[in-house]
């Protein structure tokens, strides 16, 4: 795209088991600067994945989980994201909880999703975790993290959101930029033609269709849904959105929640929490979060949406 002397430079790559696309708008002739910035974005994703993926045995978070019961010397990256996760748990009253890893594994999500759908998986385990986010001890002075013996943490979604936000900071000097990491999207400024970024909100019942197209800028938009990363095991339908109150996949009437917020990490956490809470509490929670707007789709096809999401987009 080329208008007003600006061009959009794009880089696509795979990281965190998903496709990532980053775009920056630069004046004609600034292509090299754009390409360098986009390479930096890719490096950020690669390094965060190497440190925070629980599916990489040698990652820092895997080592933290193996060190449960004793203080673990954490890098500034792990310490930062864990601090963010603990704060998110507090904000959501523990609905979002990074210590759900034992439940996630018990539900069948014990390996990366690509392997999960092609290999036989373990039977559902009954686990009574005694631990919550409150049991994570962060020592900022010593830069150590301690999780109780027998506990485990998963930073999957919030780590991806944080990575999008962190990478976005590296692009903020461009007149327009966007990062899409598997549907976790951060948008800054405007497109090369001066327009806002049109974002399709996928219909969870027909993934080829959009529920609506929102025109956005300077915000993040993320969707949590039970229709992706789901599996079937011994007649049991599992998905990755664990309700920490009972330790099993959430069974609310909500199929998907899309949230617009000021950062991808916030949007990710708010969307996940709203889905677990259900329609009423979920929408109330979204509206209780400063600047957040949401679209909730119920399993009977009813759509709930913040008034602002109608004003921002072309709606049915």
């Amino acid at each position, binding site marked *: 795209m080329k208008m007003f002397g600006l061009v959009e430079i794009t880089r696509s790559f795979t990281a965190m088991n*998903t496709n990532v*696309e980053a*775009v920056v708008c630069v004046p004609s002739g600034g292509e090299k600067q754009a390409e360098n910035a986009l390479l930096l974005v890719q490096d950020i994703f690669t390094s965060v994945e190497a440190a925070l993926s629980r599916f990489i045995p040698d990652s820092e978070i895997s080592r933290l989980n193996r060190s449960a019961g004793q203080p673990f010397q954490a890098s500034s990256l792990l310490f930062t994201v864990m601090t963010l996760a603990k704060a998110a748990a507090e904000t959501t009253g523990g609905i979002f909880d990074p210590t759900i890893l034992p439940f996630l594994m018990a539900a069948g999500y014990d390996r990366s999703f690509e392997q999960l759908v092609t290999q036989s998986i373990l039977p559902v385990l009954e686990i009574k975790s005694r631990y919550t986010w409150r049991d994570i001890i962060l020592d900022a002075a010593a830069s150590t993290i301690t999780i109780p013996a027998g506990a485990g943490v998963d930073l999957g*979604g919030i780590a*991806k959101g944080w990575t999008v936000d962190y990478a976005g900071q590296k692009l903020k000097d461009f007149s327009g930029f*966007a990062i899409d990491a*598997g*549907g*976790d*999207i951060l948008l800054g400024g405007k*497109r090369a033609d001066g327009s806002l*970024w*049109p*974002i*399709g*909100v*996928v*219909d*969870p*019942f027909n*993934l080829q*269709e*959009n*529920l609506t*197209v929102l*025109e956005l800028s300077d915000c993040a938009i*993320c*969707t*949590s*849904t039970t*229709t*992706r*990363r789901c599996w079937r095991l011994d007649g049991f339908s599992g998905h990755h959105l664990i309700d920490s109150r009972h330790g099993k996949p959430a069974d*609310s*009437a909500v199929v998907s929640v*899309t949230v617009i917020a000021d950062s991808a990490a916030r949007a*990710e956490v708010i969307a996940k929490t709203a889905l677990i809470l*259900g*329609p*009423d509490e979920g*929408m*109330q929670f979204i*509206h209780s979060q400063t600047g957040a707007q*949401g679209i*909730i*789709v*119920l*399993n*009977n*096809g*009813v*759509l*709930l*949406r*913040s*008034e602002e999401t*109608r004003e921002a987009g*072309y*709606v*049915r």
Partner: protein
Amino acid sequence: MVNQTTKRNKLAARSLVVCGTLLAGTAIWMSVINSAKPATQTAVPVSDNSSSVNQSNGVSNQSAIAVQTPISTTPILQQQVIPRFRTRGS
């Protein structure tokens, strides 16, 4: 001549009546056909009726803060916009 003129006048009058009847019939049929067509060119307004929500889904009228729309209806965008990105969900 008079008789022939009168005959021609009567014939012309009959032709006019037949033509008029045909035109009127066509007009009626057109209106019937048009009324049977869906209004595909018109944007359908979104229903904001929050009281129609199924209570069995745990949605109470407190959700009036949100707009509730059945999504089973045919999507009609007010303007065709091609999304640059899509929220696929995770």
